């Protein structure tokens, strides 16, 4: 039995018609090796960051800083990576719990948000540079090539933060790039020092 609508087969023999399927396409994987920055720039080396997809997802695996007590941050570009300085307004709150079990919190942190600033946005706070510490998470960037609306993004991370009193820290960052120009490049770095190691995979959602 098939499911047919107005002459178009939607479901047949366990298969969904291709026009009804969504997909998550791996575009590019970058691996850090003591790099100061990691950048995805549209139009080169197989990187697509344009109107091909309405949503892009960056997945971060075990990002490890070269310097203790730093923040993992990102910014966007509207000139294919010549400048990473898009004006942004953002929010930041986190849940946190330390290894000793003596402290836990859910807290909005004003020092971690931005109001119409071109600064890099924090995705994660107070990285612990111990060899077994890292942070992991996702960043969704919506419709970066849209030339009518602002550029929304939402991020969730989890990290092992603070060296002297280690915490699991779950930051929630969201906001928008306040530009109607197409965003065509994104850059990640630590607030100080290099990205010692870690992978970032860029996916397109259709």
């Amino acid at each position, binding site marked *: 039995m098939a499911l047919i609508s107005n002459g178009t087969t939607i479901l047949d023999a366990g298969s969904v018609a291709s026009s009804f399927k969504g997909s998550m396409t791996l575009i590019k994987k970058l691996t*850090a090796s003591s790099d100061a920055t990691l950048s995805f720039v549209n139009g080169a080396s197989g990187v697509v960051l344009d109107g091909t997809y309405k949503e892009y997802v960056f997945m971060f695996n075990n990002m490890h800083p070269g310097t203790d007590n730093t923040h993992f941050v990102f910014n966007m570009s509207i000139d294919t990576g010549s400048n990473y300085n898009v004006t942004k307004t953002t929010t930041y709150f986190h849940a946190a719990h330390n290894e000793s079990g003596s402290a836990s919190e859910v807290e909005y942190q004003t020092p971690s948000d931005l109001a119409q600033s071109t600064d890099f946005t924090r995705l994660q706070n107070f990285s612990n540079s111990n060899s077994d510490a890292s942070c992991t998470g996702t960043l969704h960037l919506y419709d970066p090539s849209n030339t009518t609306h602002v550029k929304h993004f939402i991020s969730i991370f989890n990290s092992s933060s603070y060296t002297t009193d280690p915490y699991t820290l779950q930051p929630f960052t969201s906001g928008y790039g306040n530009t109607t120009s197409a965003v065509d490049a994104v850059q990640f770095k630590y607030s*100080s020092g290099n990205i010692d190691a870690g992978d970032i995979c860029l996916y397109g959602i259709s």
Partner: protein
Amino acid sequence: MPRYHNINGNRVQFTAEEEAARDAEEQAWADGAFNRAIADVRNKRNRLLAETDYLALSDNTLTSDMTTYRQNLRDITNGVDTVDKCNAISWPTKP
């Protein structure tokens, strides 16, 4: 040690101008270390005080232990003027 961008998987060495800009950025970061550390201490102090604020309402009498605990929290930044002192703070135990 030169710095490198990783752009789409290709390593590109910083220009002299980029090195100078990043040096300045990292110096500013280092210079702000104490401000970040003491802000973190104050955030934690304020959070711990807020957890027991309800005990200090006008229709309640604080125990002596709780009064001491809250005063110790208020005094937690006294004499703390370096990052090392921030990291070495011994927090009072909630009664």
